[in-house]
């Protein structure tokens, strides 16, 4: 205990808030910590039962983990890795998004068809929003007016107003929508459909009204179309490139942000799901659930440069801010 604390203090003292990536290992019930300078695993600690969604407070000091089978969000210190407290999440939290101010958390409750809104300061539940069957993907609009939830069996993106927690719009997308991501300018939302095999492009009007404009599909020679299953989506801040993890196709697609054409496929580990950029968008990390590793992609070169073994069945990844 003392040793850990001392070590943590040293790190802090040396100003070495060196970049860290935190990876939730769904089967291993652990969190792997990766040093993003050396790309080595520096720690693996208990993350609760079935850790999936993972995010950080805006200042990078608190790590939030959806411990799905514990029906709670576990909160860890990003220096000491000690569990500080838990937050009420509703049952089976899977994935969440944090308000840019650090509160609240918007949490998808997969088994209960709810989005739970939890205040990270008071630790109270502010609202429970009934959504479609098997809610998963969560996104918040850059202007913070909207939280989007995707429901995997209902096949909709639900647009929830952050002002009154009411659903104002629903957009039907293809089968099993897993993830939603706004562009930084808020003019577009991308929703991946795992079983449909497409990414829906939804144009967002000034007032937030969504309009489904097109669907992007994928084609990799030598890979059965059935295995092209889009899950995680990440967009560069300038909107020029969109990265889509393709699950059992073991590839990340690179989409041109203007033309919306798929320009490249990057080979990564097996069953790639979620992704995270490093702060300067130099690197993109992917979680590969079947090969139990993380792939590091050089974003400029669009090349995989390294794979890092982590715990059992890595699910989500988040990287500390600068």
């Amino acid at each position, binding site marked *: 205990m003392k040793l850990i604390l001392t070590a943590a203090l040293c790190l802090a003292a040396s100003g070495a808030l060196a970049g860290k990536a935190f990876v939730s290992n769904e089967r291993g019930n652990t969190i792997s910590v990766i040093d993003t300078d050396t790309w080595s695993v520096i720690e693996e600690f208990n993350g609760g039962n079935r850790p999936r969604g993972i995010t950080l407070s805006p200042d990078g000091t608190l790590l939030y983990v959806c411990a799905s089978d514990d029906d709670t969000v576990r909160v860890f210190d990003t220096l000491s890795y000690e569990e500080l407290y838990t937050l009420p999440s509703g049952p089976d939290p899977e994935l969440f998004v944090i308000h840019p101010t650090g509160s609240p958390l918007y949490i998808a409750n997969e088994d209960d068809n709810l989005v739970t809104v939890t205040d990270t300061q008071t630790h109270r539940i502010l609202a429970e929003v*009934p959504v479609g069957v098997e809610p998963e993907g969560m996104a918040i609009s850059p202007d913070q007016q909207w939280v989007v939830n995707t429901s995997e069996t209902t096949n909709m993106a639900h647009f929830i107003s952050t002002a009154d927690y009411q659903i104002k719009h629903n957009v039907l997308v293809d089968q099993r929508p897993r993830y939603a991501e706004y562009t930084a300018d808020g003019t577009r939302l991308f929703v991946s459909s795992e079983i449909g095999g497409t990414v829906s492009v939804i144009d967002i009007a000034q007032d937030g009204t969504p309009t489904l404009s097109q669907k992007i599909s994928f084609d990799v020679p030598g890979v*059965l179309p059935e295995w092209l299953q889009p899950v995680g989506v990440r967009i560069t801040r300038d909107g020029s490139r969109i990265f889509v993890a393709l699950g059992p196709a073991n590839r990340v697609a690179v989409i041109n942000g203007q033309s919306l054409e798929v320009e490249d496929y990057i080979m990564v580990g097996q069953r790639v799901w979620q992704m995270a950029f490093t702060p300067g968008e130099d690197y993109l990390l992917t979680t590969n659930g079947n090969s139990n590793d993380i792939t590091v992609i050089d974003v400029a070169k669009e090349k995989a440069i390294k794979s890092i073994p982590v715990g059992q069945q890595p699910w989500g990844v988040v990287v500390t801010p600068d």
Partner: protein
Amino acid sequence: MQTKALPLLAAAFASIAFGAQALDIRAGVLRVDYPALLPISRYDIRPDDLAFAGAMLADEDNATTGRFLGHSYETVTASTAPDMAMAALEEMLGTGIRYVVVDAKAPEIAALAERAAQDGALIFNSRAPDAALRSEACHANLLHIAPSNAMMADAVAQFAIWKQWKRWFLVSGSNPADRALADAYRHAAAKFGATIVEERIFEDTGGARRTDSGHVLVQRQLPTFLQGAEAHDVVIAADATDYFAAYLPFHLWTPRPVLGSAGLRPVAIHGAHEAWGATQFQNRFETLTRRHVMDEDFNTWLALRVLGEAVTRTSSNDPAVIEDYVLSEDFELAAFKGQKVTFRPWNGQLRQPILLYDGRITVSVSPQDGFLHRVSPLDTLGLDEPESNCTAFE
């Protein structure tokens, strides 16, 4: 005959419709209960809510989606003896129901489908695996959710071929359903290049089944019955009536893996299946029913989800519109099988992967790697278009 209505869940929510037309979708689930002996294993006893439990979950799933569109769902269930099945269907049709999931054997399914056609109603077959219903005896208003014998046998065959277990010893039962299943395995062997080196029929003479010390008799009978067979890699069991196959794995003369009706079995679902998000399905089902899911539940759930998905996409409650959409290339549905399930438009069979289950875990899933098809790898399982004599959908 008992009839009950599942709770109308949509009513519990304030309906939030977004410019969509309000629809009230009423469906029926008709389960025909046949006189039957107890299964060999107590684990296989049919629960009272078999199939209906799947309907209850589907109603919840559909209602949750429907409330965003102003669509409400209500499903009525009925169980009947075979000779009362027609009356039960007529009662449902009489209340305006035009979608009926039927859990019955082929003779009843065929008769019910014909009757339903007179009222423009759509029937979902959630049980009968017979080849003829998907070929020369097909009906234009009959969609098959249940996998056929051919799909199940092909799923097993592909796995055996992938393993290079090509010499089969086919042991089948003597009842008509067992013989039909054995036919499917013969066809699968020819289709995928296995050789049936020997065939034997284990006569159904009644027998002790589960009586006290019944196993003593079985332990003496079966090995001697099986001795002296040609050299084989696996035993393929075709016992659709469930009277002997469960005993095979440890009562063989020559120790070999058993596949088919025992050992490694082809199933639509099982309670331990958790890949592709199925854990969520299992959690929802178990919360609702306090038991594990069975194929009949899954088939009924899937049938009603097909209906719900078609209503969601078409905003229609017209059986003709629904069937056209379901059979079109636009239709797709996620069913916790790792890829979308769709329909064969030429005979109304749902395409779906088949799980290979050993009683505890998913051992494998067919179609296997390397079995390709010009339309879909799923069409390597079961009757393919050129072999089908179904003309009702033309």
